[in-house]
């Protein structure tokens, strides 16, 4: 299978702002050159203050998300408390490494707010965690989104600015990448609320 990470296509991006974080993803679910659906979810709300974005093989996106849901639910029941974003970030890393020799073909991004402080972490498919100060991309359109992010990003943006910047970066990246697009979704998380916005990309 040449390029198992490219088989379904799709792009994700995560960004830090001032006391807020944002995640965005495209909506395409394809099988190589065919598009199957244009409403596939790739960003998941794990907890009120944690978002998980996944790019890669869609089957593994779904399975890995289900595994993380199970872990956090059991944790909430056993420990009788919420999971901290940094703890969840470590859980993702150890869960990916557990499958070192038969990995999940996903590249996750975790974003959250811990006591108001923004948390952003990214991983390769076998759990190498990197904590980031600004933004990170994933998926087939990643490199195109990088360019737009580098140009527009500045630290400590407000939620409104962040939404604008991450949205524009995602859209310009996905418009270039043939395997990503067919709409975008932007999530902005602050202490008070989570806003979800659907964006239009080039319809191809």
């Amino acid at each position: 299978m040449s390029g198992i990470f490219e088989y379904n296509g799709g792009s994700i991006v995560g960004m830090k702002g001032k006391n807020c974080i944002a995640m965005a993803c495209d909506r395409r679910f394809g099988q190589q050159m065919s598009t199957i659906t244009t409403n596939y979810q790739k960003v998941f709300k794990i907890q009120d203050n944690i978002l998980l974005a996944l790019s890669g093989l869609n089957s593994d996106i779904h399975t890995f998300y289900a595994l993380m849901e199970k872990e956090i639910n059991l944790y909430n029941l056993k420990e009788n408390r919420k999971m901290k974003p940094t703890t969840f970030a470590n859980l993702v890393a150890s869960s990916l490494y557990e499958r070192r020799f038969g990995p999940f073909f996903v590249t996750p991004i975790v974003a959250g707010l811990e006591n108001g402080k923004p948390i952003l972490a990214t991983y390769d498919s076998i759990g190498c965690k990197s904590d980031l100060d600004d933004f990170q991309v994933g998926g087939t359109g990643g490199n195109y989104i990088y360019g737009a992010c580098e140009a527009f990003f500045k630290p400590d943006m407000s939620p409104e600015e962040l939404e604008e910047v991450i949205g524009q970066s995602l859209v310009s990246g996905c418009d270039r990448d043939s395997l990503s697009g067919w709409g975008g979704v932007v999530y902005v998380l602050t202490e008070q609320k989570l806003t979800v916005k659907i964006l239009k990309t080039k319809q191809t």
Partner: protein
Amino acid sequence: MTDFALTTFSSKGKLLQIEYALNAVAKGDTAIGIKAKNGVVLVVEKKQSSILIEESSVQKIALLTDNVAATYAGLGPDFRVLSQQARKLVKKYDLKYQEEIFVQTLSRELAEDVQIATQRGGIRPFGVSILIAGYDEEGPHLVQLDPSGAYYSWKATAIGKQAKNAKAFLEKRYNADMEIEDAINTALLTLKEGFEGQITPTNIEVGVIRDDHVFRILPASQVKDYLEELE
């Protein structure tokens, strides 16, 4: 390893093996724990059967991780096995979450191992009650874990030979506003009450954790100072 359970119900609905295990605990050297506002103290008798024994080689308070330690009353080797299992549990948790484990979580997971010994084929229950003392994000904790696998959180408690008298003594002396220094003194006084013979810095062991989340087993010199203060 046999296929059949050794611990089975009596007609009265009791698990006699667990009752007998508790008897073994009741014969053991006394251990006392007190939870203060800002820390927890563990104090345990370390009476040696012979003066020829190297006192320093006997360690009755085991560190489970930086912020949690345990002591026991009952069979020493059983405690050794359980404290080793507890240390592994802590590390397993650490590898998965990279977070300081909560005392309640550790107690619950260790209790699972203790309970299994009351229900699995071919093995007997553990002959120890364990006192777990720790300080986590939620604050100070003192937990007692029994051979049945039941665990209880305490403000102050005692296990072993002098448990009954010590607890009666503690009920009068304990107050919720206690600071850790008061708790250490009270614990030593409580142990002294029922102590056979002279209490010395080498025939007891004292462990303390404060709000810095670091459990320390006090060296004999510090124990000597505390004992002198009691006079």
